[in-house]
C-alpha cells in the first residue's frame, strides 16, 4: 500500500515545530525516526495532512550530564544507546535493553523520544523509563514541563502528551555504585516484540534491598510497574523464598490482556518465570 498524499515541513527549532503543529490543527504528526509512523502511513492507518520533520532540531539531540541526571535528547537513536559511553556508564539499563529493540536497520533510525512518545506497551524503552524513575521533558504551547515516568503512561498509546506537544529529552538519575540492574525478555525470535519483558533497578546495602523498581512490558495497555512484587522485596535479601513471594505477587500486579496466541494465564506464568530469573541474576550481583 501507498501512503495518502501529505505535506511536509522541516522544522529547524522547537518553536517552529510547535507552531506548525498548532497551525495545522490536529491534522499533523511529528516525524522522528519514522520507524513506527511510516508503516502506519503506508498502511493508511494514519493519514495526517502534514508531517513535521523534527530530526533537524539541534536542541533535541545529544546526551549529557546535568546535575544528578543524564539528559538524553529525544532524537537519540536506538543504536546510540549501544554506542554512547555516557549511557553505558550512567544508564546501563538502557544500554542493556537496546539490543532487544528491533533490528540494526531500525535501530539506526528509530529514536528514544519517538519510542517514549508512542508508548507502545510492548516496547522496551518506555518500560525502562519507569524502572529508572526517569522524567520526561515536554515542550508545548504553555512552555516546558517535566513529567515523571510514573505519571506519563496513561493508557494504550495514550500519554501525558497533549496534542501538538513535543518530547524534548528524558532525564535519567545517574547510575550509582550501590545500584544493580537486570533486563531480559522472552521473544519468539530475536528482535521481535516480546511476549513479556522486564527491567529492574535495585539499590542495595550489601545484599539487602533498600529500593527496587520492577517494570514489565507486553503485559497490558501500558508499561507496568510490579508494585506488589517490589513491596515484597524491599528490606530483604534475594533468597529463593523472597523471589517466590515476589513471583506470587505478580498475580495482583499484572492483568494481561486476552490474546488468541498468548492467553492471560500463560503471560502471567511467563512473567513469573522471567521475574524469577532476573531476581536470581540480581541476587548474584548482576
Amino acid at each position, binding site marked *: 500500500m501507498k501512503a495518502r498524499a501529505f505535506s511536509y515541513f522541516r522544522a529547524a527549532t522547537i518553536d517552529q515545530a510547535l507552531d506548525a503543529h498548532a497551525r495545522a490543527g490536529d491534522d499533523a504528526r511529528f516525524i522522528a525516526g519514522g520507524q513506527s509512523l511510516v508503516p502506519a502511513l503506508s498502511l493508511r492507518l494514519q493519514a495526517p495532512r502534514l508531517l513535521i520533520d523534527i530530526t533537524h532540531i539541534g536542541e533535541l539531540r545529544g546526551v549529557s550530564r546535568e546535575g544528578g541526571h543524564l539528559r538524553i535528547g529525544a532524537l537519540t537513536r536506538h543504536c546510540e544507546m549501544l554506542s554512547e559511553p555516557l549511557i553505558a556508564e550512567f544508564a546501563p539499563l538502557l544500554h542493556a535493553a537496546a539490543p532487544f529493540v528491533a533490528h540494526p536497520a531500525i535501530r539506526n533510525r528509530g529514536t528514544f523520544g519517538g519510542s517514549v512518545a508512542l508508548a507502545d506497551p510492548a516496547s522496551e524503552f518506555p518500560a525502562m523509563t519507569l524502572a529508572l524513575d526517569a522524567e520526561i521533558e515536554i515542550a508545548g504551547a504553555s512552555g516546558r514541563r517535566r513529567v515523571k515516568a510514573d505519571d506519563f503512561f496513561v493508557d494504550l498509546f495514550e500519554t501525558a502528551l497533549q496534542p501538538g506537544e513535543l518530547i524534548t529529552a528524558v532525564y535519567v538519575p545517574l547510575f550509582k555504585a550501590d545500584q544493580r540492574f537486570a533486563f531480559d525478555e522472552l521473544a519468539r525470535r530475536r528482535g521481535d516484540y516480546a511476549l513479556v519483558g522486564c527491567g529492574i533497578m535495585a539499590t542495595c546495602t550489601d545484599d539487602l534491598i533498600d529500593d527496587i523498581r520492577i517494570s514489565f512490558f507486553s503485559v497490558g495497555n501500558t508499561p507496568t510497574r510490579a508494585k506488589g512484587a517490589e513491596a515484597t522485596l524491599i528490606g530483604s535479601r534475594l533468597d529463593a523464598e523472597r523471589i517466590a513471594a515476589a513471583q506470587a505477587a505478580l498475580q495482583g500486579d499484572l492483568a494481561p490482556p486476552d490474546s*488468541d496466541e498468548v492467553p492471560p494465564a500463560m503471560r502471567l506464568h511467563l512473567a513469573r518465570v522471567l521475574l524469577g530469573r532476573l531476581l536470581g541474576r540480581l541476587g548474584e550481583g548482576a
Partner: protein
Amino acid sequence: MSAPLTSLDRPNSYIGRSVPRPNAKRLLAGRGRYVSDLKLPRMLHAGFLRSPHAHAKIVSIDTEQARALDGVHLVATGTDLARICTPWTGTLDHFKGMTSAPQLPLPVDRVVWAGQAVVAVVAESRAIAEDALELIEIAYEDLPVVVDIDSAREAGGPVINPGSANNTCFRSQLDNGTVDAAFAHATHVVEEEFTFGRHTAVTLEPRAIVADYDPAAGMLTVHHATQTPYQFQDLYSRHYGIPEARVRVIATDIGGSFGMKLHVYHEDMAVVGLSILLGRPVKYVADRIESFVSDIHARDHRVRARMALDAKGEILAMDVLDLTAVGAFSTYPRTSVVEGNQVIRLMGAPYRFKNYRASLEVIFQNKVQTSQYRAVGHPIACAVTERLVDMAASKLGLDPFAIRAQNVIADDAYPQTSATGYRFEALSHQACLKRLHEIMDYDGLRAEQADLRQRGVYRGIGIATFVEITNPSPAFYGVGGARISSQDGAILSLTPSGEVRCMISVTEQGQGTEAIISQIVADQLGLAPEHVKVITGDTEVTPHGGATWACRGAGIGGETALQATRGLKRNILEIAALILQEQPSALDIVDGEVVDAGTRKPRLPIAEIARIAYFRSDTLPPGTQAQLTVSHHFAPQGYPFAFTNGIQGCSLEVDVETGFIRVLKHFIVEDCGRVINPMLVDEQLRGGIVQGLGAALFEECRYSETGQLMNGSLADYLVPMPMEMPDIVIAHVETPTADTELGAKGVGEAGTAAASACVLNAVNDALAPFGATINSIPITPAKVLKALKRF
C-alpha cells in the same frame, strides 16, 4: 560421489562440481530485473478493493466517486470482466467426483473469503488507485461463515457453494482389504490425532504482473513473476480468446516461488482483462498484506492415524483418515486436492508393510484457497508416519534408529511397490540411516542428553525418514486433462564465435536452474560453462515445456539439455570431420577444441568450425549443410515418478519453564541421484529445512471465528530468520535413476519434507521425562506449556 558420470579429473567435467550460480553476482549487485522494476510507456497501476467479510452477498457497488477522481482510468467490477473472460473451474478428471464452483476474475454476486478482491481500480499511480478504493462503497449482506473443519462437515450446516449438498470438495479411499485383519493380529497398536496449521509461502518478492495488450496487433504480452510461463500463455489465450501465438509470457528475474507462483490468482487474471479493456499496460504488485490474504495457503490437515506392529516391532499396517480444508474454491488449474492425495499416498512410504487403508476428505471453508506449496503433502505424511514409529519404538523399548533399520525397505530389495501403490525404482534408506547415525554422533548426543537431564536441561533428539516425489510424468496432471506439460524442450546453437546459447523451457527463480543447465551443456559439449549462455522464461523464445514445479528442473530439464547437447556435438564433429578429413568418431571436443579422440591432441578450435560454417560455407564440400542449431524435447518415460529418499536428524533444547525451543543442530542425509552441483543441492536442502523449521515452530495463518486472518503481516506471521537457523550438517548418498542418462532426480522439497517431523519427534523426546506429548504443528510455546500443564 559414489557414482560419478564422468571422472572429475577430466577437463570440462562440470557435472558433480560446485560451480557458482552465474546470476548470483548480478542479483547481489542489485542488477536484477524483477517485474516490479519494469516501467513501460503509458503504464497504469491497478489496486483492488477487498472484501472485509468472509462470506457475504454483494448487494450493491457504488463506484461513482472513484470514477470521478483525477488520475483514475478505469473502475471495473466482476460484471465488467465477466464480459471478456470465460470462467474457470479447479477440477481435474483423474480426481473422480471432485467438485468446485466456477470462478471469475472478480466475483459478481458473492464473496467467499475475507480479503477476496471485489473491485479493481486502474489509475496513473498505485497511490491514486488506493485513494479511489477508499471512495468505493459496497453494500454486503452477511452470510453464515464456515471456518473450522468440524462446522464445515456438520450435516445441515451452512453450505458455501449454492446448489451443493454439502461442503465436500473431494473424497478418496485407498484400501487393500487386509487392514482389519492385520490390526486384529497385532501385538501393539499406536494411535494419535495430528493437526497441521495452515501456512503460506512468504516469497521475498511478492506476486507481480504487468499485462500489456496491444489492440492494433491483437497481441498480449504479460511480464509475470511466475514459475510456469507456458501454462499461463495457454490460460490467458483460452480464457481471453486470444490465439496462443499472440500471447507472450515473460518470466524475468523472480524472487522465490516455492510453488506459490504456479496458480491462477484472481487479481492476475483481472489485470490481463484490465489491460485488454484499456489497451494500455497495467501493473499490479501484491503488497505483503495482500499476499497474506490472497496467495495460496497450504497444509491445514487433521489426521487420525494408527499403526499396527508385531511383538518384535515389525510394522504390519497403517490406517489413516485425513481431513483437510482448502478454502472456498479448488485452485486452478492444479486443484487443491493434490496435497491430500499425496498425504494418503506417501504415508509409510519408507517401510515394508503392505496392509494399508486411508480415506481423504477435502472440505470447503470460507478462507483463501490452498494449493501446492513446497513439499506438497510430504511433511504431513512424514510427520504422522514418523511420530507413530517413534511412539511404537517407545512402547516396544526400541531405539528410534533400531526400529527404522528393522522396517525400512532394504536397499537391495528394489524395485518395490509401496503399500499405497507408488512404484520405487531404487532407494537407499539403509545407507542413509547408517550415515545419519555417524554424522549426528548419535551415541554421543544421547550420552550428553542423559547427562544434561540430571541438571534439569531438557534436550531432544529426533529423526525422520522420508520419500520425495520428483520428476513427475504426465500421470501427475496431464492424465487429468490439465494442459500442463511434463516434458521440456531446449534449443542449442553454436554461435559464430564458438560459444553456445541454450534456450530451455525450465525456469529460474533463484534456485540455480541456469547454473546446472550450463554445467550440463558445458560438460557434454566440452566447453567451459562461462561459454554457455542459458536463456529461460520467455514463451516467444524458449520452447514449450513444464518449467518449474514438483522438483523437475534438474531431472527432466537437465536430461533435455544433455540430449540436446549430444545432438549439437554430433553435428559439430561432423563438420569438423569434413574439414579435418577424419571420421567423426575419431574426434572429440575438449575445452572448446576439437581433439583426437585417442591422443587428446588439439586439432581445431570449435570457433573455427563456427567461422567456416557461418561465413565460409563455400569451403565445405558441396552438399554440406552445417546444422549448428539443434532442438530437442524430452518427456520422462519409465517410472511415472523418480522417487528420492533421505533421513533427517535434529537436536534441540526445550526450556520447560517458558516453552521456548532452540534448535541446536540439524542433520540430513539425502539421495537425489546424480548430484550435478553439490553447492546448489546443499543450498536447496538448507533452504528447504529452514522452511520446514518454520512450519514446525513458527508459521501458522490464524483465523478468527468470523474468518478474519489475524496475523497477516510479517510482524505477526513468524518465519525463521538467521538467528533461528541452526547449523545444518549435510551428507549425500547417490543412487542415480536409470530412466535417464543423467541420472538426476529432484531435491528442492527434500528439506521441507521431513524437517517438521524431525522437530516434532525431538520435542516429544525432550518432553518424555514429563510424560507430556505434542502432536500438533506449529509447536508454539503455548502448546509446550499446555502439554507440561504449566498454566
